[in-house]
């Protein structure tokens, strides 16, 4: 994004009265914003960062589960967040768009040094010294298949691949250091490749729906199912060393926070990390509890240090689904309220702009179809992409989510206003003109009343779309009912997913129902059901 666009966005933020002051002038009073990407290990490490900072008296704001690499890194670059856990391999390939030379393959330290230097030059973003473990791609097959076919390495897999159905995450399918590169390096040719959500890939493999998946080497779920990971014998994958990635603001202005975060450097090894992940992903322990145990066993906090707020909403309990929902009722209510706030604010702003715009287009006519068409095209941008575009402009949190939701809500309202007013009983409108009514009188007496149900129908469509799209706002830290959905997807916890999805669906029905009543209420007299009919 250009510097000018950034400046405009900052000005807009300040004008909107954002609680977060302009980025450049930080103070010690400002909390450190700790974020994560939406998968178990990232949540856990972020919570450990947060607790560690808090134990040293540094105020923290948590933004767990930000969309994906582009969203989390985009937010970090623009100082909208301050720190999140990242992996050198991801930084190299997904952010710098570079490939690894063979020297770096052999030596993770050289790779780390290279990535560090490039990030600092390019973005002013700083990698703290690595945490001590790698979490690379781990291509996994069922243990029984491995034994039967003698599979130990990825070269062995190449032999068996024509008979295998692969289930890979879409991230892996799309990345240059993922499927495309791997298939080329080893000559893999699968029978077919299916994109799978991270949450379901282990189950899919265990249940033989697919034969091979991409895992992460520290995944707790690798241990749960009877799986074998294959050795990368041609050293295709770059090293994925975990480290804290730090925003320009934090590294320039908060040496205290940097010093505290560096306490974790070199302290976590792969087997320890796998066992912590297992507690989160398999045993269903609450992330704050596991993070506290991690810090305690490293001697970084004493036993009395408590956690202030859970980074994920609740742990899995052995009770049934209804008990689970009941226990979460307060949380669900507050998420629903936040969700509704997002929807109402975006919708109200959309109505205030879209209805006058629709009326204006109807007056001008010239270019109206073009404007309506362009808004329609906007509608086709995937929500997650639109949210990602917002980050360089507006950072993360509520504002970019509101702007994105507002953009989505515009189209149905503008279109219905425009067509509704345009098609309102032309003869009645013309008669009114011929009687000497002014343009404003024709609008208020004839066009608007006749178009009202169509306009409200547009608002209704927009409202239902917005309720749905608002669940994605959780990817950029705006909260709402998407929060448990994102976390549940990351932790393969279907109850958590449902605890967000069910209220969201219910909310959509309620909003739709309320607006259908409004639609009936504004229906002009001659169209309402109770009009007497004597003809």
């Amino acid at each position, binding site marked *: 994004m250009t510097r000018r666009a950034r400046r405009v966005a900052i000005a807009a933020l300040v004008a909107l009265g954002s609680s977060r002051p302009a980025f450049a002038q930080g103070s010690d009073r400002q909390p450190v914003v700790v974020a994560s990407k939406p998968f178990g290990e990232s949540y856990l490490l972020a919570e450990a960062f947060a607790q560690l900072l808090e134990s040293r008296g540094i105020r923290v704001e948590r933004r767990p589960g930000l969309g994906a690499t582009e969203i989390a890194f985009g937010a970090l670059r623009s100082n909208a967040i301050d720190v999140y856990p990242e992996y050198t391999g991801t930084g190299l390939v997904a952010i710098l768009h570079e490939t690894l030379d063979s020297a770096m393959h052999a030596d993770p330290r050289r790779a780390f040094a290279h990535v560090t230097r490039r990030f600092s030059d390019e973005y002013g973003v700083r990698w703290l010294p690595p945490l001590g473990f790698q979490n690379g791609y781990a291509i996994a097959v069922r243990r029984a298949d491995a034994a039967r076919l003698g599979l130990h390495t990825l070269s062995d897999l190449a032999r068996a691949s024509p008979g295998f159905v692969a289930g890979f995450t879409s991230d892996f399918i799309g990345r240059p250091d993922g499927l495309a590169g791997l298939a080329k390096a080893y000559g893999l040719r699968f029978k077919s490749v299916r994109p799978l959500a991270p949450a379901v890939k282990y189950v899919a493999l265990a249940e033989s729906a697919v034969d091979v998946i991409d895992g992460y080497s520290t995944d707790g779920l690798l241990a749960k199912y009877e799986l074998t990971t294959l050795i990368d014998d041609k050293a295709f994958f770059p090293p994925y060393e975990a480290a804290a990635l730090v925003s320009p603001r934090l590294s320039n202005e908060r040496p205290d926070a940097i010093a505290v975060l560096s306490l974790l450097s070199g302290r976590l090894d792969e087997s320890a990390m796998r066992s912590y992940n297992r507690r989160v992903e398999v045993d269903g322990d609450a992330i704050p509890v596991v993070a506290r145990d991690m810090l305690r066993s490293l001697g970084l906090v004493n036993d009395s240090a408590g956690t202030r707020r859970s980074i994920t909403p609740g742990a899995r309990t052995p009770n049934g689904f209804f008990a689970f929902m009941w226990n979460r009722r307060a949380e669900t209510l507050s998420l629903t309220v936040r969700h509704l706030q997002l929807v109402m604010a975006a919708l109200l702003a959309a109505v205030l702009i879209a209805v006058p715009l629709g009326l204006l287009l109807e007056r001008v006519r010239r270019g109206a179809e073009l404007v309506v068409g362009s808004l329609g095209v906007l509608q086709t941008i995937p929500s997650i992409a639109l949210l990602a575009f917002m980050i360089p402009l507006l950072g993360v949190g509520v504002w970019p989510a509101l702007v994105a939701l507002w953009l989505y809500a515009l189209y149905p309202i503008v279109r219905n206003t425009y067509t509704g007013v345009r098609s309102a009983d032309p*003869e009645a409108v013309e*008669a009114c003109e011929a*009687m000497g009514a002014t343009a404003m009188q024709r609008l208020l007496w004839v066009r608007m009343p006749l178009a009202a149900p169509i306009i409200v129908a547009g608002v209704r469509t927009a409202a239902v779309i917005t309720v749905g799209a608002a669940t994605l706002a959780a990817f950029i830290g705006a909260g709402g009912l998407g929060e448990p959905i994102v976390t549940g997807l990351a932790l393969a916890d279907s109850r958590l997913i449902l605890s967000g999805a069910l209220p969201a669906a219910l909310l959509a029905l309620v909003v739709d129902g309320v607006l259908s009543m409004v639609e009936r209420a504004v229906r002009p007299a*001659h169209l309402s059901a109770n009009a007497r009919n004597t*003809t």
Partner: protein
Amino acid sequence: MALALDASGLFHAYGLVTALDGVSLQVPAGSVAALVGESGSGKTTLLRSFNRLVEPQRGTVRVGGIDVSSEKPESLRRRLGYVPQNGGLLPHWTIRRNVALVPTLSGMASPSSVADEALRLVGLDPGRFGRRLPRELSGGQRQRAALARAFAARQQAVLLDEPFGALDAISRGEAHEAFERVRSELGFTGLLVTHDLAEAARLADQVVVMRQGRVEQAGFVRDLQRAPATPYVAQLFERARAAHSALADQ
């Protein structure tokens, strides 16, 4: 005081299609002229030139001797009644409110009672029909309500664009009676577009035959019938007579 309608040398084209090609017309105050001719002959364009729904590209239009372009369209229109083909009543307003539209726009005192009086004059009992919606009336009743709206504010000239063309014979007869009753009561000037020569003969003092944007012939029905100026006028009357006698022979 009824207003004379006067047009001279009107020319108007929609893109490449010429609608008015040098038309002049005089309707003396208090009389009714009927514009007849086939679709596309320019009748409606001529009619709409008087209340400035159409602004002719050349020529002058006068109402009561005053050039219409010297007046604001809104105030001009409030002085001229208008009845479109399907009435053009606002579907979501009651009949009373519809008829009270121009009295309201003109700021007359108690527009509702003015509307009721107009309704009575066209034979619609305001107590029975005033609170109904247009769709709750028959086609003929709706057109009579539209007629009431056109003169409720005591307009001194009324423009009617095929107002009774879509009605059945009985409703049309009732509408004709209502029109004649109102005219004899109020004496406004009328300009009536119609396809129906019989209707023109019944309601109008003067018939103006239009063809391809020009006035083919204008005068009393009787004179046109007796001495058609062009073969087209002769054929028009011939056809109307044939249709009429076909009915008489049955």
